[in-house]
């Protein structure tokens, strides 16, 4: 059974972090905004959730509040960019710094324990006790369920007129303006929405590991970028509508990346080498796709 443990861990982490990968991918691909805020809204969501839930606010109310906090962080990034014409990266970096201090202030320390408090995983805990080897099959199924519901809602929203206008604003701002679409407003709205997802990812991870930590966002950006790149290279783009492709690729990439990392650690990769291994993995996947398609020029253009 030892071979299945990395798969279990990787699958679980991939599904937990898929929302953060989704946040980055939707911002990057649909809004044309490489949004670094994800690294700040992820722990901010966890911090807001942990504090509210510990003070007695019901879990089902704490989660949307945490998502709202993440959404406000995303909206602030968009606002800084459109109002003060700050560089997209710089806007995100400024908000990461704000979110870090804010998370510390909200939690009153660097972390808060959530053990003994209710969680969305409570319903599957008992079912998993009967499984051999401590496999988290039911937790994974629950997370897949969340992702299916969430993805359906996101795809539905992107197909509405508001969603279409948002996608036009991201795809071609000049064309969007010619159609009378308010590009800055749509950008702020879009970044708010994507960072709600990043905050949700932080909430789910905090619930699963039993604590929220101010440093839990560190590295999320790198892993989300790696997962997005891997997912987009693994899936055939032409089979799906573009926004559906971005969404599915983010989830598949998140799981694939985490499973590979779990197996790499299992076979003896030192945790200190993890980021180097991530970079090599991303380059390998891109290179494989390019050599398979034989279309280096199109990759470079992209």
């Amino acid at each position: 059974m030892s071979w299945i443990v990395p798969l279990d861990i990787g699958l679980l982490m991939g599904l937990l972090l898929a929302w953060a990968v989704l946040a980055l991918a939707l911002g990057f691909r649909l809004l044309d905004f490489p949004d670094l805020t994800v690294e700040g809204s992820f722990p901010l969501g966890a911090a807001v959730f942990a504090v509210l839930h510990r003070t007695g606010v019901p879990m089902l109310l704490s989660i949307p509040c945490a998502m709202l906090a993440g959404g406000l962080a995303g909206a602030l990034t968009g606002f800084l960019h459109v109002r003060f014409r700050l560089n997209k990266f710089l806007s995100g970096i400024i908000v990461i710094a704000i979110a870090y201090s804010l998370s510390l202030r909200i939690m009153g320390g660097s972390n808060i324990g959530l053990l003994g408090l209710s969680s969305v995983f409570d319903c599957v805990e008992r079912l998993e006790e009967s499984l051999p080897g401590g496999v988290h099959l039911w937790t994974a199924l629950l997370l897949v369920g969340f992702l299916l519901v969430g993805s359906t809602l996101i795809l539905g929203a992107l197909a509405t007129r508001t969603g279409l206008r948002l996608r036009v604003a991201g795809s071609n701002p000049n064309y969007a303006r010619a159609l009378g679409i308010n590009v800055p407003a749509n950008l702020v709205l879009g970044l708010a929405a994507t960072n709600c997802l990043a905050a949700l990812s932080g909430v789910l991870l905090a619930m699963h590991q039993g604590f929220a930590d101010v440093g839990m966002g560190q590295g999320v950006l790198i892993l989300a970028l790696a997962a997005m790149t891997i997912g987009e290279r693994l899936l055939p783009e032409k089979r799906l509508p573009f926004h559906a492709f971005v969404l599915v690729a983010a989830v598949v990439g998140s799981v694939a990346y985490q499973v590979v990392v779990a197996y790499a650690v299992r076979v003896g990769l030192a945790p200190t080498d993890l980021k180097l291994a991530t970079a090599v993995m991303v380059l390998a996947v891109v290179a494989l796709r390019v050599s398979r398609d034989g279309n280096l020029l199109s990759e470079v253009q992209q």
Partner: protein
Amino acid sequence: MTKSDSILTVSNVTVTFSRWGQAVRAVRDLTLSLPRGQWVMLVGHNGSGKSTLLRAISGAIRPETGDIVLTGRSLTDMSASEIARSVFLVHQDPLMGTASTLTLFENLLVADHAAATANCSHKELLGKYVELLRPLGLADRLKQLAKTLSGGERQLLALLIGRLRPSPLMLLDEPLAALDPAKSELCIEQIRSMHAAGKTVVQVTHEPHLALRAGDRTVVLANGEIVYDAIGDDRSSEALRRFWGGV
């Protein structure tokens, strides 16, 4: 022509912009009036101010002096969405006029003002767009992304999008540039349909035969000023040669 007849009145407009730190006066004290339903061919050498004039009329750039009145209202008093409902600019670059990551259906839907107000069903819209795309040979590509189209096909799509807009004034900045003869003919057909539907058209061209024979009126720009303006049969190749040299 009374003011109420004209859809566009450009009064003493000067447009200056900065290029590499140097002020460039692209349009100089220009005055022009367009009656509803007219099809104007706008010609002139590169750098004569044609594109800048179109961008100023579309609200993309603000004139330094003068006033632009569109459908009876000054541009400065109109919101961005009001301007977008009054005028639509098709760029020379086909990539500028469509959203590459949206399908053809979605590109048409987001621009289709009538569909938004009439609350049409998906099936009705599908039928409508298939009929619109059929003459362009794109009917079977409705579900493909715009980025899969060639440059010429994207320009045809951009013109079709213009037909779906509620704006009575269409500005076409060299829509036929870099198109093969077959695509050019299809584009001209699209513009004729637009014009026949009652839209006022201002089309920039470098094609001498179009400048002289297409449309109702020909205006020649040089150094940001109108140097020739003739309507219908008054247009002569000799005059055009003198002011433009293109014939």
